[in-house]
């Protein structure tokens, strides 16, 4: 009796899981997509627009970067 019950629970567990997977895949298959060329063009556009504000990309003068070493100070 015990073994019959547990195998029934095991199969129904698999059924519940399979139903969830099917449900999830249906949701994923139905989303709207755009073409890769358009998506890539947008990424490039964003890069181009923001490149001048990117310190690591453009490099900023040592005097403006708090991390870059300035000339040593002399204590008067």
């Amino acid at each position, binding site marked *: 009796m015990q073994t019959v019950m547990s195998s029934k*629970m095991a*199969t*129904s*567990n*698999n*059924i*519940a*899981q*399979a*139903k*969830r*997977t*099917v*449900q*999830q*895949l*249906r*949701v*994923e*298959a139905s*989303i709207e*997509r*755009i*073409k*890769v*060329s*358009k*998506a*890539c*063009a*947008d*990424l*490039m556009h*964003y*890069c*181009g*627009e*923001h*490149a001048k*504000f*990117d*310190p*690591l*990309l453009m490099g*900023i003068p040592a005097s403006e*970067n*708090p*991390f*870059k*070493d300035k000339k040593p100070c002399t204590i008067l």
Partner: protein
Amino acid sequence: MCDQTFLAATFGPCDNCSANRPLMNIYLKNEPINYCSLCVELMACQGLAPGETLASLKTESENLKVKLEEERAKLHDVELHQVAEKVEALGQFVMKTRRTLKGHGNKVLCTDWCRDKRRIVSSSQDGKVIVWDAYTTNKEHAVTMPCTWVMACAYAPSGCAIACGGLDNKCSVYPLSLDKNENLAAKKKSVAMHTNYLSACSFTNSDMQILTSSGDGTCALWDVESGQLLQSFHGHTADVLTLDLGPSETSNIFISGGCDKKANVWDMRSGQNIQSFETHDSDINAVKFYPSGDAFASGSDDATCRLFDLRADREVAIYSKESIIFGASSVDFSLSGRLLFAGYNDYTINVWDVLKGTRVAILFGHENRVSTVRVSPDGTAFCSGSWDNTLRIWA
């Protein structure tokens, strides 16, 4: 299988039998329902439509997967690096270690910048969480956690608190006080409770909510003040190792990556898994949104980093070289999204040109695995933490 390892994250009256039991949060016809596990099983047995069997459901799910791939492939008309051919190539990069933060007694596992662009919080295997002033390399605060392997730490947006957690399965929030002598551990607040280790945590736009991911396969959104679970996210079938929130203040999505090789996109309000990407060959160690919020990068144990576009719903670039055979543990974008900094288990940091797919620099300096890489909020520098017990600031 994760169904055995993770317990339900909520407890309360079942919508069906009204008994107070651990609840499973599932979706039926896009409606969230909270049934206890017994009612879920009974419903599953009754819920089979005539002619449906386990086998027929499995075939349907296989067919759906194939259809999903076909739909994605239809829109795959070009590769990113082809589109980027007309973009100017980048010049030589000179990035050096400008500061070395020493003080941890063991491996540095996680770091986060404060929004003031100068403070950094870092956590380590030895259980210590330290707040540093990156300009002066001074330690401002130190907390000793009751557990080792503090794998996650995060700075609150206001700069007034930090969150951390690890093998204690919890995420705790410590308000930072200006009084140096105050014992921070006394004010500690336990916010998140998982059934396995905490792998990552992040504050949302305010100090009031925290998003966590755990080795129990789930992610969860918590209210800091009350410690209440606001939303839980089920879908990963193995440990979740990393998460990242959408960059815009109005976006309600976040991404997570885990040991099941999947990167999932979630809706924070409904708890629904919107998209899933499974092209990596091994555990995904890090995910990070592209600054525009339309794409994200991932780093994995398969030694590659990949760029996925959310609107095209597919992988659009892969950053790899035959000479790179060690896993990538951490990734972050520069401010414009043109550069991708990735820390690897071979002790190096590789800098990739996101658009062209080429490597522009390789940075040496750490004497052990690089475990975390974070670009500062104003993009002037980035910080790397390593198993050699140090943090380095590069600019």
